[in-house]
């Protein structure tokens, strides 16, 4: 999205929408909330930047750094937790050498911190890698999927 298009979209939200809606557009367009987005929303809505930043930090949906190419979400709903989601997170952390909330150095994977219930509890535990859903998954199945992506990406690189 160009800067002009973004400003236009935020202006549309001013009439009938809200600061929150405008931030959601920014998150969608840029993959994270950057300084330009905060500034634009503040200007268009005639509120202070700290007000916009205050709204953005309140909600989990907004991130302030770009995610990896493949964002990994391990659902931490009750059903997934009971069926071993925490062990799966630990295994992924070990595999990628990052902590939950972090991103690998090559920017390939990021592991989301505390993913909220994705609402598919009857096929728990659930791990989402990029846009692929792994249902009734296990540590082994999850790590195999991650390694598969790693191999694919290595082939793609020169």
């Amino acid at each position: 999205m160009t800067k002009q298009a973004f400003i236009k979209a935020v202006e549309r939200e001013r009439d009938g929408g809200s600061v929150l809606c405008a931030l959601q557009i920014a998150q969608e367009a840029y993959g994270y909330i950057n300084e330009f987005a905060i500034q634009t929303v503040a200007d268009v809505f005639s509120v202070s930047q700290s007000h916009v930043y205050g709204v953005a930090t309140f909600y989990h949906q907004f991130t302030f750094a770009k995610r990896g190419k493949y964002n990994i979400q391990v659902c931490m709903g009750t059903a997934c937790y009971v069926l071993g989601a925490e062990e799966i997170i630990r295994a992924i952390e070990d595999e990628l050498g990052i902590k939950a909330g972090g991103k690998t150095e090559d920017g390939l994977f990021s592991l989301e911190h505390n993913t909220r219930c994705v609402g598919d509890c009857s096929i728990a535990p659930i791990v989402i890698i990029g846009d692929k859903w792994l249902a009734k998954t296990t540590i082994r199945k999850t790590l195999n999927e991650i390694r598969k992506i790693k191999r694919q990406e290595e082939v793609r690189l020169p």
Partner: protein
Amino acid sequence: MNKKKLEQIKEQYKPIIEEKRAKWQEEHDTPFYTRQTRLVLRNVEIIEPTSVHEYIATDGYFGFAKALTMQPQEIIDIVKESGMRGRGGAGFSTGKKWQFVHDAQSETKYIVCNADEGDPGAFMDRAILENDPYSVLESMTIAGYALGAQKGYIYCRAEYPQAVKNCKAAIIAARKNRLLGDNLFGTNFSFNIELRLGAGAFVCGEETALIASIEGKRGEPRPRPPFPAVSGLYGKPTLINNVETLSAIPMIIFEGAERWNKIGSPNNAGTKVFALAGNITNGGLIEVPMGITIKEIIYEIGGGYAEGSKVKAVQAGGPSGGCIPASMFDLPIDFDSLQSVGSILGSGGLVVMCDKVCMIDVAKFFIKFSVDESCGKCVPCRIGNIKLLNILEKITSGRGEESDLCELEKLSKTIIETSLCGLGQSSPNPVLSTLTHFREEYLDHIHNRRCGAGICRELTTYEINEKCIMCTACIKVCPVDAITGELKKPHYLSKEKCIKCNKCVPICPVDAIVRV
């Protein structure tokens, strides 16, 4: 659109629906489905979710057509008579809520559908919005007519992309077919609905926080009164109902209050949708009459759990609910009886737990959730929950003392009594209910430094059992050389050296490394 057109469409599409329904029944001829009473879920998996014609063929919008011929007070009386209690968790009388908003004097009023289903382990609202979005739209339109509102908002969780997509499509189609918009059915009643997305904050399921979030602010709750029925969205009288509540209203208006109130138990009319999950053979959404026992749900509908393990407890009501032990499974499930044992019906999540689940770990899981989701506005919730978490961590790491249990109880009561909103007022429930029903497990952790379920890492040890095929995979991965042995020779695990990093467990091809 008018009544005549509705009837034409119904005539045309009825055979299709009947065929689909018959096919569905044939394909779902198992106790899991036949034991249910599907009223709210009547159209789920049967109609094409975004087809307004198929919805009309299931008597859709006939409730609204009927409502337009009635006085607003008559409509509210039917809702009252049905005995409907809010399905969002608190169980407040829906008819009374409608009456409050109706009686409030204002030119502008709002109808809000609370679809911010944040409870982990609950997904009935998602299923309704994904599969039967028009039932919610019709219901909000009826409410708009009865209460004198012109605008409605659906506040949906952003984590449900499919529900958002289907809702958007349904709103557009409803506008196109003049089921939303100005002068509906040729009357002077106009109504519009807008979809708003949540942004991942559990507290926004609380009604005053939800209002703040629709207004685009931080989703922090405020003290009540004034209640939203008097001063809600943008300071105007606002009706806030849950998805499941709304979804049942068109049927109640069209077929009469008896359709609802002849089902269920005294003071708890109708059916309830539960999300059955966890250690259970058949998980999924089930709709059953209120007052059915937990035993019937778990064993007759859910099919129990895998042989060899015992169902220990069921957790109802998510982070605001509590654990009910197996000894109480004869308890009928409804708003009042669950409250009497320290749990709540909540939005209807039922997570079944077998003996491999540590109850203190579960309590810790929920308190961690509440700590993360506390908005931080009031002190008891912000600091109290962290203190609870610290004590639970102390116990699960093997440093607990018996006096900690008193401290947990005392602190829990203070948090419940002094918090600002429903989140803090109910967040200690998982601790209190496990303390009441599973005290011996706490004492086992404290006195014997033992976790019977083998979950709490500091209190368990690793062992290699007889399944071992001596492949050396674990030896290669162990960072501290705690496992010794050679290819095709027995492997040994030194408990002194082991740092319990769990790396060897997933690597073993035959699951021979276990925690005890």
